């Protein structure tokens, strides 16, 4: 904890108190303030999506569809998916932590395009408002995947407003990615070569490539769905000569790389945390950087593994199955490298490190089960069942959300100038881990037993596993609520954080907590390699380290 005399936060100017009032926040160009705007909004949508999830799990306590009507249930899982995917999973790490940290990590004053950064947030909010509107006026029930002709010809819910909301959120994502790529290329401080970049930055660079190149495809696809709905066009309608599989190809061409948008930033977080709490540089820096790029590129080549039973040819299926095994390799390599980083380290177990351990374990399981799905013979049985649901929740929740929480704890002192309560942090991490596994591991078994996904009611033999899963979900909910509470608590009552409470490497720890608006008093000149823990010593406590050390 802090050993220097705590400075009353109000005396020193930081980005938090530089300017007061709504206008200074809503018209800010400061990447740190924009990141906080995002923090509030993604948390809001996580909450909404989480409530939908709880309702789903409550319904699934009993085999009969007795809590809500079928149509309502269909809306619940549709909007749980849409809200979580487009309004939480895609933006959270890049728009909150990426926005905050990337300029500081590379030694810059701000992103390349601060006004476009703010515009991104407004696009996100616009999309979010449309989504809230959709929910309030009755919702949408097409599934988050919008398969045609169900979504174009048969659904009689608010499909178009949902599409518009997602379209705007997509534009937000594109602009964020564009901003990051230009920033990382052009705004690095002197001495900050590509090979000295923190892996957090590398991860966001790879993510941004996917955001810029992939998102437009789903944007135009959803526009075509909306047009088809409005004018009964026939592009995806077999009765009019259209092809529903064309929709699926176009949709998954983005939506598969989208999952790498979700996980790559989380992987960047884990690299930072593991190095800090092992007091070591990362094992295999080059391999780790190449791995994220490899995942980004290969991720564009595997989309039809979502369509093995959709009616594609056997030969297509073979090609996409093989390519899917290719993309698994760099992910596996990363798990090995994180583990190897701990070898001969000096490991301590503060909350961020607990989340990092959790990530590595849960991502391993999630990733391995992806291999099951890539396997054609098995996929025929388990696709469209709870096995898939378990798989993607392991990587998205056990992976990305766990990493996000770890990152929030790691950088909370920097963002807020306060320490969170360590005991509660560790407790919440443990509760999340237990609750998560209890919720989702039974679903692998359910899936292999044959329980299809998106089922409102199910045969009685599936009940016991569903009850276990729901029990887990309530535990998980507690685990999520705790940080929401103690982070807010810490803003007032938390001990004041020094510049570098973890004695971590990286430029962000060389400036005050919270940082001043301009980030650096003087532009840093970088003369050291990334993760220079040999200079920083074996103790993950705060030491005074000056710029340029």
């Amino acid at each position: 904890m802090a050993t220097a005399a705590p400075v009353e936060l109000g005396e020193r100017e930081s980005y938090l108190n530089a300017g007061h009032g709504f206008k200074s926040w809503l018209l800010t160009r400061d990447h740190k303030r924009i990141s906080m705007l995002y923090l509030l909004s993604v948390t809001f949508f996580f909450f909404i999506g989480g409530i939908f999830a709880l309702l789903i799990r409550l319904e699934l306590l009993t085999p009969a569809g007795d809590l809500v009507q079928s149509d309502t249930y269909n809306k619940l899982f549709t909007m749980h998916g849409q809200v979580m995917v487009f309004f939480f999973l895609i933006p959270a790490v890049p728009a909150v932590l990426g926005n905050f940290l990337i300029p500081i990590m590379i030694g810059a004053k701000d992103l390349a395009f601060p006004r476009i950064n703010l515009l991104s947030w407004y696009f996100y909010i616009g999309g979010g408002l449309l989504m809230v509107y959709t929910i309030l006026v009755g919702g949408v029930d097409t599934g988050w995947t919008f398969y045609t002709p169900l979504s174009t010809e048969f659904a009689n819910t608010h499909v178009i407003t949902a599409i518009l909301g997602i379209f705007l959120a997509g534009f937000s994502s594109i602009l964020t990615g564009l901003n990051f790529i230009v920033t990382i290329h052009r705004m690095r401080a002197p001495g900050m070569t590509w090979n000295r970049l923190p892996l957090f930055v590398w991860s966001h660079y790879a993510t941004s490539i996917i955001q810029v190149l992939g998102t437009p495809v789903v944007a135009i696809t959803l526009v075509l769905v909306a047009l088809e709905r409005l004018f009964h066009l026939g592009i995806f309608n077999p009765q009019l000569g259209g092809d529903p599989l064309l929709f699926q190809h176009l949709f998954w061409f983005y939506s598969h790389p989208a999952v790498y948008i979700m996980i790559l930033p989380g992987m960047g977080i884990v690299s930072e945390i593991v190095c800090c709490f092992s007091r070591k540089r990362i094992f295999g820096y080059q391999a780790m950087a190449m791995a994220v790029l490899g995942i980004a590129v290969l991720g564009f080549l595997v989309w039809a593994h979502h369509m093995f039973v959709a009616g594609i040819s056997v030969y297509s299926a073979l090609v996409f199955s093989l390519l899917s095994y290719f993309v698994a390799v760099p992910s596996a390599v990363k798990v090995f490298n994180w583990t190897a980083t701990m070898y001969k380290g000096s490991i301590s177990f503060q909350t961020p490190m607990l989340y990092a351990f959790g990530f590595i374990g849960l991502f391993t399981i999630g990733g391995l089960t992806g291999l099951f799905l890539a396997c054609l013979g098995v996929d025929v049985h388990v696709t469209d069942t709870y096995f898939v649901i378990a798989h993607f929740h392991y990587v998205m929740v056990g992976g990305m959300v766990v990493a996000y929480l770890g990152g929030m704890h790691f950088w909370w002192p920097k963002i807020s100038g306060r320490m969170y309560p360590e005991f509660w942090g560790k407790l919440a991490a443990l509760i999340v881990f237990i609750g998560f596994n209890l919720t989702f591991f039974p679903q692998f078994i359910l899936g292999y037993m044959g329980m299809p996904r998106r089922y409102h009611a199910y045969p009685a033999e599936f009940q016991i596993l569903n009850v276990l899963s729901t029990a887990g979900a309530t535990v998980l909910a507690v685990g999520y609520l705790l940080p929401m509470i103690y982070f807010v608590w810490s803003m007032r009552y938390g001990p004041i954080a020094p510049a570098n409470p973890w004695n971590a490497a990286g430029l962000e720890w060389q400036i005050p907590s919270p940082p001043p608006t301009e980030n650096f008093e003087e532009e840093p000149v970088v003369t050291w390699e990334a993760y220079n823990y040999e200079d920083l010593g074996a103790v993950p406590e705060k030491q005074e380290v000056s710029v340029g050390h």
Partner: protein
Amino acid sequence: MATNQAAVVGTHADQHDPALLHHFATKEQQKNSASLGMWLFLGQEVMFFGGMFCAYLVYRYKYFGDFGSASQTLNIWYGAINTGVLLCSSLTVVLAVRAAQLNKRKALTVWLLLTIVLGLAFLGIKGIEYAEKFQDHHIPGPTFAYHGTVPSHPNQQVDPHHAEIYFSLYFAMTGMHALHMIIGVGLFGTLAFWAWRGKYSANYYTPIENAGLYWHFVDIVWIYLFPLLYLIDRHR
């Protein structure tokens, strides 16, 4: 990987340049960033239009003859004139950039205005084409009706559903293109205003250059649209 940029500690002259935004160290850094940003934006636009091109290619292959027939209901002369108009407008754009580089405020404004005129001409001709399609009942939806035969196969009737798909894609693709043109015209209008007010010079003309890139992109999209939509099967 690329070596890191040269030290970006700003020069004294740069610091006082009103065109230099505070978070950039040098004008050069700012200009390069803006350029890279615009290229990335155009990259994502390629992917955006790409989805529709993909759909078009799939159905052109699948309904080869029907697409050929539907395509021939378009007026090839309007299309060709529009192609010429856009090519000329790309020329005026380039001349505008050149004028900015040479500090010629009046010439810059004139070239920008000419670009707008040509853009509006394009949109006007497009409007005439759309009106014709409306007359012909070729607008997809409840009023759609199509009768025709496949080129070179006078006995083979065209399936109206397939023709409707052609026109759906025609309107989606040219409509999206026209929307981008309208945005471009608005953009150039703003630039023309500020150019007249003297905001741009050899020292600072990045917005002209980047808007020019955008305009060239919209032009190139049309260069692909025209043959794919208007010129297929004309030899039959």
